[in-house]
């Protein structure tokens, strides 16, 4: 028990130091911008005295360590600076757009786990059979296809040819007039359910399907192959043979005894893929005109809106670090051997 606590504390401490390091790298990143940040703020025609004033305002005239200290102080107060592009606080921009991105991300990952794990298990159980080959084909295609390409193909098939699903957006634009969504959490799936807005719910689901599949393709591929590998390894162990010898049904052995021990490596991969999907959502959002962080990110990147770029990079890295922490702790909880290392 004490060992476990010690492990949790040690892991928390590491995550804390990593986050500090992440903030330093992000800070340095913005300082290698070849163009003068002050010029970026006011535009190329700025007068010298205006530039000096802005430099002072932004603290650019101070030595680097002092600048970093100021940056950290602001950061801890939730101040990520003002976006050059929109002239609004970066944190506000991120918070406004994050729910749409997270709704897509969570739906995609849910789909990936829901499909990926069973595919991996089936593949392992029928190793070498056509089903196994099929799953391996799906998973290698999933990890190879660029999201922005898959999205377009799905649009051609399901919108243009079959007319089954909407092309872009988060909800139908007419919905505003017929069944407006009351925003509570800004997760439309939850909001429509809470307000019993069934028309809105159905519309939200319809709009989510293609982006979620596009986003899930890569994670499905990775999760399926990792589950398969882990299952094959577990299935060879003695306790499985013993279970077989006792005449326990193969289905129970596979889905209960084996899967339980194969889930730990799969969890690591799920953590890794969420990080990948985090960046992946940006591409999916652009293809599907999804009103999330993607479009804002791309615009900031192209216009060297460096406070926004720093903010988004920090958001992505922080989410990733926390996620890895959660995965590690979950694993220690599932598999007590880990915390003993």
């Amino acid at each position, binding site marked *: 028990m004490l060992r476990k606590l010690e492990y949790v504390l040690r892991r928390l401490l590491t995550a804390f130091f*990593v*986050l500090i*390091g*992440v903030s330093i*790298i*992000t800070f340095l*990143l*913005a300082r*290698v*911008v*070849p163009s003068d940040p002050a010029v970026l703020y006011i535009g190329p025609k700025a007068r010298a005295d205006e530039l000096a004033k802005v430099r002072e305002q932004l603290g650019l005239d101070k030595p680097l360590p002092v600048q970093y200290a100021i940056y950290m102080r602001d950061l801890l107060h939730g101040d990520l600076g003002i976006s050059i592009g929109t002239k609004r606080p970066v944190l506000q921009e991120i918070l406004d757009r994050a729910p749409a991105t997270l709704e897509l991300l969570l739906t995609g990952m849910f789909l990936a786990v829901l499909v990926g794990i069973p595919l991996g298990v089936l593949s392992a159980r029928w*190793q070498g059979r056509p089903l196994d080959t099929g799953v391996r084909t799906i998973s*290698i*295609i999933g*990890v*190879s*296809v*660029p999201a*922005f*390409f898959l999205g*377009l*193909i799905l*649009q*051609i098939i399901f*919108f*243009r040819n079959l007319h089954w699903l909407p*092309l872009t957006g988060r909800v139908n634009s007419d919905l505003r007039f017929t069944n407006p969504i009351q925003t509570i959490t800004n997760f439309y799936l939850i909001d429509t359910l809470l307000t019993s807005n069934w028309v809105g719910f159905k519309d939200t689901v319809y709009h989510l399907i293609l982006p979620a599949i596009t986003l899930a393709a890569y994670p499905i591929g*990775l999760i399926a*192959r*990792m589950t398969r*590998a882990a299952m*094959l*390894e577990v299935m060879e162990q003695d306790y499985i043979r013993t279970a077989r010898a006792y005449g326990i049904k193969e289905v129970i052995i596979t889905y209960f005894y084996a899967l339980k021990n194969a889930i730990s*490596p799969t969890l*690591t*991969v799920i953590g*890794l893929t969420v*990080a*990948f999907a*985090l*960046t992946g959502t940006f*591409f999916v959002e*652009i*293809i599907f005109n999804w009103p999330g962080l993607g479009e804002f*990110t*791309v615009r*900031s*990147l*192209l216009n*060297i809106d*460096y406070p926004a*770029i*720093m903010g*988004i*990079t920090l958001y*992505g*890295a922080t989410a*990733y*670090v926390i996620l890895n922490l959660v995965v590690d702790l979950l694993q220690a909880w599932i598999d007590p051997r880990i915390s003993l290392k």
Partner: protein
Amino acid sequence: MADIASLPFEPEVQSTRTFRHVLNVIVRDPLSLASTIVIILFILTAIFAYQIAPYPLEGAGKPDVSQRMEAPSTEHPFGTDRLGRDMLSRVIIGARPALIVPFGVVFFAILIGAPLGAIAAYKGGRVDEVIMRTTDLFLAFPSLLLAMAITAALGRGLQNAAIALVISWWPWYTRLVHGVTLSLRERYFIEAAQATGVRDSVIVLRHILPNTISPILVQATVDLGTVILAMGGLGFLGLGTQPPFPDWGLMVSEGREFILNQWWISTFPGLAIFVVVLVFNLLGDTLRDIFDPRQYR
């Protein structure tokens, strides 16, 4: 991918025997053989792009407004784009940045990452701590996001995108080589070298690094696919190759607004990325099977 670094490696086999063995396995497995052939074809296409492309000038960016957005035909098998340029030529010439740059990226990532990993593991102590914790920091960012931010900071363009990818990718090799070196360090031949008074730098260069080549090559093959995909992503966002020069990712993005009618503009470059990444992944899987049969069966 990332998980391979944490796996135990058995660098037992002699390198010459391994090479023959690898060739044998690849030739016998139809899928791997096909992948290898497709990879070679793509590389040849990239090298001789200007000789192969039916309209090399259009491929490199010269517009021809008399034939805008024409559907695929015998004259233009992949159709033409918004500026009337032959898509087949653009895809062929676009193979150059799409393939050659990722090779360079992986090469430099290994050049930086591998020695650092070997030194860290061999030296241990302080050096090890500093190098590996720095590695952890870089790995704390989602790779593509970091590459996107660095490219934006350095200024968009093919060269800066490549530099950004190297900065995001070297830590994977440091971690991989670190793991392999740790197990090598315990082996008798290293101990023997140490006992006979061989200098540390020589041990790392002559005895450790050569023995990490097989795992590095496996990782590099898989990574090539990932880097090509990342490159396509950066291009798609407009951070990579700048117009009028062709870039597969950028071409997909350019054709996006016409996707419902002029589907060919986005489809062919997208397909090109997909196929290249697919064959690298297929070959990478086979290599992984050979070198680490425990992991993937």
